[in-house]
């Protein structure tokens, strides 16, 4: 690498790659459960190392927001670590109280955010004056993001441990029968209640199927129902007779199972069995004799009730009154509803009214006021009664399901929290906004999957290659949850690194495959990697196990087939192919992950057709295109799997006029050339003409840069017109003209004069104006 600028550029890239690698490495360590204090130390050390500063500090706002606890740091004075520093000013914003202590000339600080608040600050201090670059800021924010996620994860781990311990404790003290299975459906845990009930031995129960203790007549149906539910990972609900040790017979139980997830992966079921023997007996008895019903009802431990034809309560049993602590009279008529939790009462009554109107069986889960003063969850259900074919009202039973509901909501909370952390991590690893790229409209969307903790490892990225082409990537790491999100971060960085140095998409993908296959962790990902030439519309791409990119051309949408190969991380050695195509002018390109087009109930072809149709009907602007595709393909429902979508459109450089103002510094010349290149390409100028015209305009601009003495922010203006086959250009600066300074500047002026058909230089107090003219096409005389 060379050229001071080029060298500096190379250096920037190297520094950036090193910084990104440091962030990815720390994210990985955080996810592997590195202890928080050690992680904060590692972050402080990485910040000092990568930024080459003498001091760094991780400061945590204290609970009262009045102080900052120095939790970690590099090069801090004795006694600072572990002490609480004042917050200056009171709102916790910059500057740091450490600045004076450290005698730092330059400082940079970024906030560390956690969900719902501000955790503290990450700060870097340099003794020598220096300017922190945007990359440095990005790097520190990346580190802050890792720390924020780690802090959240620490809380989350507490909850998981807490909830696991609570689960076992609750499970063993609850009168209910509880169990867990693994993903294959084998029982991995039964509680004391279960063992007491069945007098089973843990060794015999665990590893077996819970059907073993079922009544032989119920066993087949139970297993059929269980297999069906667990195949679909749905809630499982079944009533059957379970062996009862104390009586030597069987008792009716209601078995309920809920799928469990950990880290987004299905890991089995957690379930309860509730003794409903009295309820069943009651129902049986009721069928046999109305007369014996009430007598039986009052000796039963279950909660029972009857109504008249109008739905008003005519009877509740002792079991009901023991639960509510009310009197028989208080429960008559419609007043039982007063005991229902205010949040549940509306739903309960409306479903009850609906059932009553059609004389259907009714069932409701709601919170009922308990005599202890709390509300407890009950499962209540009633069936219509008939006497000699005439409807006479309902009879119902309720059972206490509070433990199960509590368990469910706690598990739900845990899933929710994990889901949120994975999503936070995912978002912190995706570019917050896409970098503006000259001559390209860009929009991207990422939608997290809705189902439980099913955050996946989808990503998108865009980078401008040194050869002026643009690399686009969308990918999908196989798997879900935190680990997939972390692998995604590493793959994204790997693509950025190889994408900068390798021109061929197949070679980039092959290198990533080699990298992944040589790693310790097993990672597999589908990837669409594409390189676009904005000027010519030429694309070359490689689709590693990934659905094809969509081109939305003015003539209609189509998919770019070809360049197919296996996913990254699937095989080694593997052959990766690439294909090339030309985008028709005015086309947009849509890259997506399979969350957009994959659905179990519809063949892929149909979904792709649907995507193409959605693109055809979508809005014209690039952002609207993304929105319309998402809303018409996914509908109102949140996607089951996560979805990444990236849309780009090369802007037509057809304007017959360009004008821009640039800072008077040599670095602006590359930018000017890029703009000119697009403009000249569109005029139909030959390659030689393009070079010569760009050169003359840049020579004039070089003059302007040398003249533009001023307080730092001097600029120059370039204006170019193309009309009737003829190109006119002007470059204006605000400096004072100096004749031929040195041989090289003289050479520059000679180049301008010789390569242009006509050149005029005007000076005034305001500065210098160079006008140039050159004919490009002889066939279209003005």
């Amino acid at each position: 690498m060379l050229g001071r600028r080029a060298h500096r550029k190379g250096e920037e890239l190297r520094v950036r790659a090193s910084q990104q690698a440091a962030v990815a490495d720390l994210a990985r360590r955080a996810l592997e459960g590195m202890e928080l204090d050690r992680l904060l130390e590692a972050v402080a050390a990485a910040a000092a190392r990568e930024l080459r500063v003498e001091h760094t500090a991780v400061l945590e706002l204290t609970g009262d927001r009045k102080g900052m606890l120095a939790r970690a740091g590099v090069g801090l004075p004795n006694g600072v670590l572990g002490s609480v520093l004042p917050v200056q000013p009171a709102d916790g914003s910059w500057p740091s109280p450490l600045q004076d202590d450290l005698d730092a000339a330059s400082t940079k600080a970024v906030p560390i955010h956690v969900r719902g608040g501000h955790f503290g600050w990450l700060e870097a201090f340099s003794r020598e004056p220096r300017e922190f670059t945007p990359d440095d800021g990005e790097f520190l924010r990346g580190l802050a993001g890792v720390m924020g996620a780690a802090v959240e994860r620490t809380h989350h781990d507490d909850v998981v441990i807490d909830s696991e311990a609570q689960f076992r404790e609750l499970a063993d003290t609850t009168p209910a029968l509880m169990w867990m299975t693994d993903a294959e459906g084998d029982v991995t845990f039964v509680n004391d209640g279960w063992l007491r009930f069945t007098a089973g031995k843990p060794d015999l129960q665990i590893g077996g199927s819970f059907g073993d203790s079922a009544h032989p007549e119920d066993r087949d149906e139970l297993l059929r129902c269980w297999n069906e539910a667990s195949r679909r990972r749905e809630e499982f609900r079944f009533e059957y007779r379970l062996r009862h040790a104390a009586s030597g017979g069987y008792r009716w139980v209601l078995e309920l199972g809920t799928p469990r997830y950990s880290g987004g992966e299905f890991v089995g079921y957690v379930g309860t069995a509730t003794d409903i023997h009295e309820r069943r007996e009651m129902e049986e008895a009721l069928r046999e004799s109305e007369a014996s019903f009430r007598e039986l009802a009052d000796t039963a431990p279950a909660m029972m009730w009857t109504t008249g034809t109008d739905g008003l309560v005519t009877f509740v049993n002792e079991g009901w009154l023991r639960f509510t602590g009310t009197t028989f009279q208080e429960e008559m008529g419609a007043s039982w509803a007063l005991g229902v939790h205010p949040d549940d009462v509306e739903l309960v009554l409306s479903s009850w009214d609906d059932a009553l109107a059609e004389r259907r069986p009714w069932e409701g889960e709601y919170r009922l006021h308990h005599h202890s003063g709390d509300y407890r969850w009950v499962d209540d259900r009633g069936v219509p009664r008939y006497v000699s074919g005439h409807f006479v009202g309902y009879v119902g039973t309720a059972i206490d399901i509070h433990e199960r509901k509590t368990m469910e909501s706690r598990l739900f909370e845990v899933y929710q929290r994990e889901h949120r952390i994975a999503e936070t991590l995912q978002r912190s690893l995706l570019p917050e906004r896409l970098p503006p790229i000259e001559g390209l409209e860009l929009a991207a969307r990422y939608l997290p999957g809705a189902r439980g903790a099913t955050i996946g490892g989808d990503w998108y990225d865009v980078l401008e290659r040194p050869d002026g082409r643009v690399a686009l990537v969308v990918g999908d790491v196989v798997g879900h949850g935190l680990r997939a999100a972390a692998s995604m971060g590493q793959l994204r960085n790997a693509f950025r690194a190889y994408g900068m140095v390798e021109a061929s998409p197949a070679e980039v993908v092959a290198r990533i495959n080699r990298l992944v296959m040589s790693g310790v962790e097993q990672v597999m990902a589908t990837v669409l990697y594409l390189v676009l030439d904005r000027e010519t519309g030429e694309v070359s791409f490689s689709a590693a196990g990934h659905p094809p990119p969509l081109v939305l051309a003015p003539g209609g949408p189509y998919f770019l087939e070809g360049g197919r190969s296996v996913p990254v991380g699937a095989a080694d050695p593997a052959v990766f192919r690439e294909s090339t195509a030309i985008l028709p002018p005015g086309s947009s390109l849509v890259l997506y992950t399979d969350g957009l087009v994959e659905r179990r109930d519809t063949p892929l072809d149909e979904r792709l057709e649907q995507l193409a149709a959605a693109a055809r009907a979508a809005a014209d602007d690039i952002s609207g295109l993304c929105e319309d595709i998402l809303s018409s393909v996914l509908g109102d429902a949140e996607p089951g799997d996560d979805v990444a979508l990236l849309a780009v459109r090369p802007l037509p450089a057809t304007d017959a006029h360009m004008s821009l103002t640039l800072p008077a510094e040599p670095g602006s010349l590359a930018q000017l050339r890029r703009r000119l290149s697009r403009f000249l390409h569109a005029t139909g100028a030959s390659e030689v003409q393009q070079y010569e015209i760009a050169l003359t305009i840049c020579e004039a601009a070089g003059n302007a840069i040398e003249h533009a003495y001023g307080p730092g922010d001097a600029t120059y203006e370039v204006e170019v017109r193309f009309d009737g086959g003829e190109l006119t250009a002007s470059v204006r600066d605000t400096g004072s003209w100096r004749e031929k300074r040195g041989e090289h500047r003289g050479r520059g002026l000679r180049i301008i004069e010789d390569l242009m058909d006509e050149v005029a230089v005007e000076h005034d107090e305001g500065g210098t104006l160079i006008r140039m003219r050159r004919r490009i096409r002889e066939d279209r005389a003005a």
Partner: protein
Amino acid sequence: MSSPAELVLDRRGGHVVARLSGEVDMSNASYVREQLLASMPNDALVLVLDISGCRYLDSAAIEVLFDASRRLARRRQELRLVMPPNSPLRRVIELTEVHTAAPVYESLDAALTE
């Protein structure tokens, strides 16, 4: 944005072959010059600078060619240029009379076998 350029060096007996690619302008010209001069050990006789891969050279870059040639000549070393006949840079190289400072060859082989 800054201008990207790349220099790849290769020693062949008494010749040092330097392949320059990318874009050289006033933002990186002096760095290119330093690297070129530093690439020539005292025992090398000829520096063959191949600009076939260059997309853009401006007057500052051309000045580097003149300057490098002068400095090498003082060390009794020679600068040769390689530029294919169809290069878009050809007219500018001719116009600025670069051949008066360094002979221009149409291929690397030609520059090496001379």
